[in-house]
């Protein structure tokens, strides 16, 4: 062992000589088995159903509809709104992932200047509040584009999608950089010694191995962006949260309906995001075992 090769200390190695601390492991090691309901799930769902139904049921009397009946009556509209949230989340995720992949590759590229610029852009968009970026997109992107003499209007929700894709891009860029940095340097050396060019090494050796590492944080990011899409209601896009308050107004603005209605919105997102979280944890765990 002559030259001190510039190598990162693996967490496991760092902990090895000292028996005081085990390596840091990201959250729970439970096996993936979501058809089986466990106490946690029951508490979670029961808790939400209680806020939706319980709070309101007591107040329901006479001619007034109970909260559950109100939700039932407006269910198609609310579900349409929720579907719109999902649509925005998918589109902004696709857009942000593509842009983030490019930005991330620039961050680890060979060009010094581009590397700096990509790093700065990543940090800037990663550290800005999502809501500020959303405002940024809403106000800074023109409401119509003129391409070859055709004027195309750009609806608000498309601008919102772009606004959400900015933080996705920045976080994706970091995910790419982190995954590439986490590969042992021996992989680069081996590829180099076999006369692979840098580009070939990247695309044939490094990135294929990174896909697996990037999947859990990428899914986590998707879950976060899905939950962030309700912020579009603040800038006037008609999604589930906007429709929820419209439903509330249509029912005469009864204060007792607010908790159940917002509770219902929480339940919808919970049922969508919780399985994603479980699956992410399962993947993380499997990846650790395979290492």
């Amino acid at each position, binding site marked *: 062992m002559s030259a001190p090769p510039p190598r990162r200390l693996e967490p496991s190695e760092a902990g090895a000589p000292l028996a005081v601390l085990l390596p840091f492991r990201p959250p729970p090691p439970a096996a993936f088995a979501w058809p089986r309901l466990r106490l*946690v799930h029951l508490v979670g769902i029961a808790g939400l159903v209680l806020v939706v139904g319980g709070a309101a049921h007591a107040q329901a009397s006479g001619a007034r509809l109970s909260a559950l009946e109100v939700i039932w009556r407006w269910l198609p509209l609310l579900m349409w709104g929720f579907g719109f949230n999902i649509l925005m989340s998918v589109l902004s995720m696709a857009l942000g992932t593509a842009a983030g992949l490019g930005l991330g590759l620039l961050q680890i590229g060979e060009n010094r200047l581009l590397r700096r610029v990509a790093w700065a852009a990543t940090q800037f968009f990663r*550290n800005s509040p999502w809501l500020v970026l959303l405002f940024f997109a809403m106000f800074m992107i023109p409401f119509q584009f003129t391409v070859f003499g055709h004027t195309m209007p750009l609806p608000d929700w498309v601008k919102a999608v772009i606004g959400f894709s900015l933080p996705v891009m920045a976080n994706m860029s970091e995910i790419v950089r982190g995954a590439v940095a986490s590969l042992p340097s021996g992989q680069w050396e081996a590829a180099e010694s076999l006369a692979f060019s840098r580009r070939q090494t990247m695309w044939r050796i490094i990135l294929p191995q990174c896909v697996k590492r990037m999947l859990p944080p990428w899914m986590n990011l998707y879950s976060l962006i899905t939950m962030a899409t309700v912020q579009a209601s603040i800038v006037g896009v008609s999604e589930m949260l906007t429709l929820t308050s419209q439903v509330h107004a249509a029912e005469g603005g009864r204060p007792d309906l607010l908790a159940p209605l917002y509770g219902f919105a929480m339940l919808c997102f919970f049922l969508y*995001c*919780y399985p994603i979280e479980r699956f992410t944890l399962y993947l993380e765990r499997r990846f650790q075992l395979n290492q």
Partner: protein
Amino acid sequence: MLMETVARWFLDLYETTGINLTIVYDAYDRQRFLSGLGMTIYLAVVCILISIAIGAVGAWAQGSPLRVVRGLVNGFVVIFRNTPPLVQIFFFYFGLGQILPRIEDADGMRVPILTNVQWAIVSLSLFAGAFNVEIFRSGLEAVPRTTTEAAQALGYTRLGVYRHVLLPLALRICLPALNNNLVNLLKTTTLAYAIAVPETLYVSKQIWTDSQNVPVMMIVLLIVYTLLVGILVFIMHRWEKALAIPGYGQGSGR
């Protein structure tokens, strides 16, 4: 005197370039903006402290021998991690705020128990706290069983083991993750905008509505938040350094 010169310079800047920084040359806007900034910092600091406390207590309760307690804590974590924070804020402020009885204030006016600022603190703290419980938990799991046993053998109670041995060790392990989450919390304080808490984003919108200087205020906002995050990260790194255990991990050796 100096202020006046600076103000005049920025007024000139507006007249020559169109860069309209009212928050520098206009006393009223400056006052508004600074109070907004103050509100953001206040929200962030209070929520950070409460959410860390929630994390520490929650992680301890997760080790409870009682199934019900564990189930409740897990349920809390699972709900708050997997529902949109903005809806949580609405649920608390509009939903619970409307149902809870009103109280009489000093002048005999009937006012809500909690103001919008207080509701924002409650919901943001619970949101970040749920993440902190998970973070502390994974830190605790990294402390070997034998360390706990050694502490128990020395006669510590369950709480004593947690307070004096487990938590200090776990905290050091999970600081990077905690760091991340607190930065996130700082960014999430902007959601208080939605319930009219006069924080930075809210006052900025008032200012750009009055002065018609959206692009300039947009840039100011982005820079302000980048700086705030930078300050928080700096403080957390200092803390990480101060807590580093010699001989363990990246914080040591080099």
